[in-house]
């Protein structure tokens, strides 16, 4: 009996080895890893990104693939959590992926980018944009979204020049992305001659922000800028209006989602401004793409769907240029990208993997919808 079970278990282990070898050693497909949060607070964002990536892959596979090989996606859930993200990254490395795409929360992308850097696998980050990511100077990590300093500058220009604001309050949610952007905005405002009257963090999992907002109210700011995500952002706007705090309310790209307006209530959200990457709904040329997405997934694209779609196309483009699925060759091809057309305009990378040109625009809520501000 014992001997039997021993043989059986050895066979089982061998068969696993054989199976995994089959999975990655198959020469007829290119394996691309996708890392994004599909559980936890940001699960919806991850799903929106995954859908768009799947869409780009389905399109190219429908045309016969790239370099005569089909692309297969391997999905890993980083749960927007640094530890889960490290596990997810290691899982992708062990699956021998040729390249990785995704990354929503900067706090999760930071450790993952380290894993991919030491494994020599290129990663195209399609949402996270903390300045801490390029600070590591990893040669194989590319950011398709402009970084925080570009966004901080856009926000500052708007608040100081367009709104004629002097006293500005900044709120963040204590995550890497949010704190980084808040710090850069604070510095940019002070440089531009404005005054930061309040700078605070709140707990995004809470639902009552009245205590912080009463504090904001006592400082009578001309504008309040929130650098966190939309769930807490919506509640902040609602309670901001309930308390009757002075000045306008602005949010950063993580809060740009229709749900923000729904949570805040249309009346409360009216006039809220936002700094945002150029989304397909603001770009005339991308209307058709949004429609295709809606037909395929029965829901509208999320804020980072378009960037994720472009990111996957960028990887496909690099695979074509490199004529290989070797990670190093792909890294080289992405770094050499010249004027690759995306929804946001032509894309090129600096040596540190960030975009050469900022892609942030100003939008605002009008009649319950985000619209471009002229």
């Amino acid at each position, binding site marked *: 009996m014992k001997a039997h079970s021993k043989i059986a278990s050895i066979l089982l282990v061998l068969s696993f080895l054989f199976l995994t070898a089959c999975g990655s050693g198959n020469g007829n497909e290119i394996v691309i890893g996708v890392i994004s949060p599909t559980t936890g607070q940001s699960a*919806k964002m991850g799903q929106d990104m995954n859908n768009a990536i799947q869409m780009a892959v389905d399109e190219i596979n429908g045309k016969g693939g790239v370099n005569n090989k089909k692309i297969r996606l391997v999905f890993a859930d980083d749960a927007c959590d640094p530890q889960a993200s490290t596990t997810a990254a290691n899982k992708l490395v062990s699956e021998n992926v040729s390249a990785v795409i995704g990354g929503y929360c900067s706090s999760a992308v930071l450790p993952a980018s380290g894993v991919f850097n030491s494994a020599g696998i290129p990663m195209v980050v399609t949402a996270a944009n903390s300045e801490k990511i390029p600070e590591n100077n990893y040669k194989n990590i590319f950011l398709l979204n402009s970084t925080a300093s570009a966004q901080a500058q856009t926000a500052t220009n708007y608040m100081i020049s367009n709104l004629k604001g002097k006293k500005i309050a900044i709120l963040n949610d204590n995550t890497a992305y949010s704190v980084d952007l808040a710090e850069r905005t604070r510095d940019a405002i002070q440089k531009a001659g404005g005054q930061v009257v309040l700078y605070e963090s709140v*707990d995004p*999992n809470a639902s*009552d922000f009245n*205590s912080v907002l009463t504090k904001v109210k006592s400082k009578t700011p001309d504008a309040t800028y929130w650098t966190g995500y939309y769930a807490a952002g*919506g509640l902040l706007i609602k309670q901001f209006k309930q308390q009757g705090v002075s000045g306008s309310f602005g949010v950063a790209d993580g809060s740009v989602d229709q749900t923000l307006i729904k949570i805040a209530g249309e009346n*409360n959200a009216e006039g809220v401004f936002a700094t945002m990457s150029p989304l397909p709904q603001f770009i005339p040329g991308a209307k058709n793409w949004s429609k295709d997405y809606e037909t395929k997934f029965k829901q509208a694209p999320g804020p980072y769907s378009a960037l994720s779609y472009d990111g996957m196309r960028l990887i496909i483009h690099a695979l074509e240029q490199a004529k290989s699925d070797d990670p190093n060759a792909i890294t080289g091809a992405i770094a050499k990208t010249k004027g690759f057309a995306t929804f946001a305009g032509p894309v090129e990378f600096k040596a540190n993997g960030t975009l050469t040109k900022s892609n942030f625009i100003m939008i605002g809520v009008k009649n319950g919808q985000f619209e471009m501000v002229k």
Partner: protein
Amino acid sequence: MDIFLQQVINALVVGTFYGLIALGYSMVYGIIRLLNFAHGDLFMLGAFAGFSVLSLFTGQVGFIGIGLALIVSVLVVGLIGLGVERIAYRPLIKKKSPKLNLLITAVGVSLAIEYAVMLSYGPSFRVYPIQLPNTGFHIGDVKITYIQLGIILFTILIMIFLQLFIHKSIYGKAMRSIAIDDTATSLMGIPVHRFIGLTFFMGSGLAAVAGVMDGIYYGQINFLMGFLFGLKAFTAAVIGGIGSVNGAMLGGLVLGIVETLGTVYVGGEWKDVFAFGILILFLVLKPTGLLGEAVNERV
């Protein structure tokens, strides 16, 4: 001064929510010495049950709609609480399993509820299909909205009812008796397990009330919303003296005030540090809490 008073109002509203959830924690602990870590998720279930009821209405939802949402939510979540007790906890209680097994089961129940809701309602934030006006009245510079006042008054009503139920009714007497000695109580011919079930029903119902009120007041719900609220309610229950009904409410208010004052005088990022710091202080220095009696068993 006005800002301080405004902050006290803010604290009272938050404290009310903590207190309502802490009530259920305390009642269940009082009777079977179980820290029901799934309690925060019953609160979340309550919010979702209310969401489903309110979604059925088209157009303006009036007080009848809110009343109906509260009643349905209490019944549904109460029955689920009862079911959880029957399926997950009762077999362990009957076997006289170690308390740790119960505790781990509670964590399992918590995850099961969370992800069942995620699968049926989706992972994204849901917006309550009701928007109440921001109107209210001013006392000096302090603004109190009608809905804040409503929440506080409604909670006071619930507290009065609970007091009468526990101290004046025969059912309350049976529950208090089980809390003191369940074996002796069962020897007196009282169906102990039925009353444990009743306690679960009531505790879950109270959580459901808090859930619906949270949904209406804040307007946004999510399958993970019960986690932090559950921890805070646990803290409130410990501060007040776990097992004590009045203590739970008092603990909720104290926690609300400590958190808010921490936010005001130190900074928003310290809010949870204050909340859980006070939990540690109480566990170390005064584990019986403000109004609790001596606790023999610990987890």
